[in-house]
């Protein structure tokens, strides 16, 4: 017996019940994914991925939505990554205890908790109307960037703090300035970890619908967007439209499953990349 205390019947029963609960939720999780994978997989084809939707979405492919999501996510990262990383460097290396620091942290926590639809309202009020960008790629990217900012900051800061203090001290002791120390002795080690956090936020940006609903997306566009001030189609919104607004549900069901699967695959691919990166960092750096 590994355990000296007596195992009673109630205990066995309780642990069994808890195991049952856990496995049931795992089963639900698996069911959701397998349902979408098995029903979506037969739809995937080259034509589906590279075709335009036709006949009000009842036929054809998802190219403009796929491309739109790609554009929105890239734009979001271009805006959010530098700001997020710079904030993380400031918080971990420069900020001292105090009011300003507390305010910064409270702001980041608040940003992380704001519901995505409220970001949509904010983007509508500020970017679309006040700055007069209209519903556009630019407004959508800026709104999404605000939304993913806290994730990038928090995970990047963690990566920076994981770099041992003596690396900094050694450099400072040799007479290097603070920034030189950060640039040569901290950032190179923290960068992979910082990127991991950013990659996770990419996955989130790709799957979100509510913030771009009010700021960027269009129901259907006959051609691809030409400039930053054009509307786009996006994969999550396309799925929403297909599955709620289409007059003939049963006919487009396969297309809905196909679109859901593509979206799921994108999010998974992005998340697996992050996990892979995290594992390889752990192998590389052992402090």
């Amino acid at each position, binding site marked *: 017996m590994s*355990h000296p*205390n007596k*195992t*009673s019947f109630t*205990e066995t029963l*309780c*642990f069994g019940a*808890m*195991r049952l*609960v*856990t*496995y049931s*939720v795992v089963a639900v*999780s698996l069911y*959701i994914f397998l349902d*979408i994978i098995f029903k979506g997989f037969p739809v995937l084809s080259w034509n589906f991925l590279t075709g335009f939707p036709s006949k009000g979405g009842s036929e054809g492919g998802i190219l403009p939505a796929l491309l739109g999501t790609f554009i929105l996510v890239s734009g979001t990262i271009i805006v959010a990554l*530098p*700001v997020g990383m*710079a*904030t993380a460097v*400031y*918080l971990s290396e*420069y900020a001292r205890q105090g009011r300003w620091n507390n305010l*910064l942290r409270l*702001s980041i*926590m*608040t*940003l992380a*908790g*704001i*519901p995505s*639809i*409220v*970001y*949509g*309202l*904010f983007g509508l*009020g*500020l970017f679309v109307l*006040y700055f007069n960008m209209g519903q556009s790629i630019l407004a959508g990217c800026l709104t999404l960037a*605000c939304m993913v900012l806290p994730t990038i*900051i928090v995970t990047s800061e963690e990566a920076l703090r994981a770099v041992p203090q003596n690396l900094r001290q050694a450099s400072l002791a040799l007479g290097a*300035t603070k*920034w030189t120390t950060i640039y040569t002795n901290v950032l190179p080690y923290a960068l992979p970890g910082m990127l991991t956090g950013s990659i996770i936020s990419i*996955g989130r940006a*790709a*799957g*979100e*619908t*509510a913030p771009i*609903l*009010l700021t960027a997306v269009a129901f259907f566009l006959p051609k691809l967007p030409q400039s930053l001030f054009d509307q786009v189609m996006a994969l*999550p919104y396309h799925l*929403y439209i297909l*599955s709620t607004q289409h007059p003939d549900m049963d006919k487009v069901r396969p297309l*809905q499953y196909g679109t*859901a699967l593509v979206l*799921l695959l994108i*999010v998974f691919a992005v*998340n697996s990349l992050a996990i892979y990166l995290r594992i390889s960092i752990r192998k590389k750096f052992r402090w």
Partner: protein
Amino acid sequence: MLKDKIIRYILASAASISVLVVLLVFYFLFKESFLFAQANGIKILLGTQWKPVSFFDPSFGVLPLITGSFLVTCIAGLIAIPLGIVIAVYLAEIAGEKEKEILKPLIEILASLPSVVLGFFGLVVLAPLIQKIFNLNSGLTALTGAVLLAVMAIPTITSVSEDALRAVPALYKQASLALGASRLQTIWRVTVPAGLSGIVAAVMLGMGRVIGETMAVLMVTGNAPALTFSPTESARTMTATIASEMGEVAQGSEHYGALFWVGLILLFITFLLVAFSQRILKKYQNFKT
């Protein structure tokens, strides 16, 4: 040296962007809803009817929307909180290392599911199921939305609670076991109470996510803005109202202002939940060290 100073300023100004964004979010929601409040008075918001597009007598009582959100959130909580905590306890205290390594990702993967995909699943699989079980005319009910939201909240509640349980010092458990308590007694009388503040924070974070969730509820709750507390009837939440109606309103109209009001209320609720849970988690970290 000058270069160092400049870089410091650049980094500090990047950091202040976060503060600026938060202020702007509050400012714009206040600004747009203030116009509405000025024109109509706040009283109108306490009405029990949400009929924004009625031609003769549009009314913007947000009460049914608040009760809608409340109803869906409560049912989701009733499902997700016990399940999330039980799973956390199982993973942290009972499951073997190997078992845990397999189970944990399978639960956490739910968190990465885009809400629109979950909504789609709810529409295609869950709604017909609920319609059949309860013998209803339509499967698009508050309950359907709540079940989906519970699926979303479980990974958050589980992973934060599990961290809290793992942080309970091993000494506590050893002392309890040494006194002759069984594993079950140790878990429920020592480990869970010691990690309780972290579990409470986990629940609040999960609930914050639930109340702010838009697409899944928009797709499956049926969206009838009625003042009801029946889980098998259609309900409309605050988030779904904003998402579905904002596309059709004219800027600056009453309806537009009313939707920003709804957003503002939502912002305050989630802000309170986050602030409160952060407070608890912070205390908890002090306790750990």
